[in-house]
């Protein structure tokens, strides 16, 4: 407990066992965080992102055909301003293309976005990939 008289706060000399338990548990939590981040500091030092895009779903919406995609970043390096380009082919000819920019794809994380096409990509060949990025 803390005794608060006037403006001087004196920590009492006989702490309750709960104070020690809380303190010890807290120290363990901090230690675990230090070990986790420290392990990454030593072992996981990528210098460029590793971006992969996969299609989650294609739906007909009022403004066309909406393709929901997910970008995964398998590296520990975050990518920013990731441009994703989607193309629909009527083999071998390109029918339609759409692009979007995602703000961030953090390391070992994913981001979700969407592209809208006028042509129905279902039943046609579709390619969605990241074509550019910046490092934050």
């Amino acid at each position, binding site marked *: 407990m803390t005794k608060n008289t006037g403006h001087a706060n004196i920590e009492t000399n006989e702490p309750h066992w709960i104070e020690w338990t809380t303190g010890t548990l807290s120290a363990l939590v901090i230690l675990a965080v230090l070990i986790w*981040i*420290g392990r990454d500091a030593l072992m996981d030092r990528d210098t460029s992102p590793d971006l992969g895009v996969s299609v989650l779903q294609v739906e007909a919406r009022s403004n066309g055909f909406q393709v929901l995609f997910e970008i995964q970043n398998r590296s520990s390096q975050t990518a920013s301003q990731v441009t994703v380009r989607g193309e629909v082919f009527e083999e071998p000819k390109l029918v339609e293309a759409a692009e979007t920019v995602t703000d961030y794809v953090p390391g070992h994380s994913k981001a979700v976005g969407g592209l809208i096409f006028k042509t129905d990509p279902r039943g046609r060949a579709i390619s969605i990939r990241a074509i550019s990025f910046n490092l934050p």
Partner: protein
Amino acid sequence: MNNALAPRSTAKDFDLGKFLAGIARGIAGALLFALPMLMTMEMWELGFYMDRTRLLILMVLNIPLLIVLSDRVGFEQTTTWLEAMRDASIAYCLGIFASGLILVAIGVVTSDQAPHEIIGMIAVQSVPASIGAMLGRSQLGGQSQQGDPDSGDPLRDRETSYAGELFLMAIGELFLSLNVAPTEEMILLSYKMTPWHALLLIVASVALMHGFVYTLSFRGSHDLAEGTPSWHALVRFTIPGYVIAGMISAFCLWTFHRTDDVGATQALMMIVILSFPGAIGAAAARLIL
């Protein structure tokens, strides 16, 4: 109303001037503490895109927090929980009122917006504003009526339980966290920093937090009782305080959708970054409140 809520004071004792001064102080506190957030673009955007479950959790958690805070430092010295609840609800209402007023005044809330947007924007701002309204009393006034704060002020002359100390730290931490957690800079920093920066920041946060409370001689500084080794306070107060700061940072980041789809290490780095201002807020709260 007064008879039912405050059995010890009768309608005759009720001082309208004092009551209105308390309300004014609450609004002043709400403005002082919430203005930085009211003028942050991300906070307006959160108002309409934020997940409503998370917004609800934030708003509901704010109620017990205000009640306990009211018991500690409210508009006036509360003696019963009923009074604390009454003051908490006044503070919450003042927070909502002040947020709405400022958002309209700065042109963020306009009549052509959907009610969903307007309510969301005011709701998310009302949480920091209500804490500000509650703190308004302890930071902006009270002393004038109580004379010299060092001479027998009943609010100052008391023992703070261990849980009470941790609660104060949580309030201070929450306050600074809410200020910066919605900004994009928090996540951008976590992308720019290497894990080595994060490790250093953890050590620096704990050291600063401890230094603020125990080493630097601010008014309200804490001292150890005679014969207590100095590491006692570190283990009993500073380290738990830092973990609380981390938990509240994590909660704020989750509430504001900053940890969605983010990998464990990145999320941990964001928490560490947000805990840095949080730790200083926690230390400051122990000195001030």
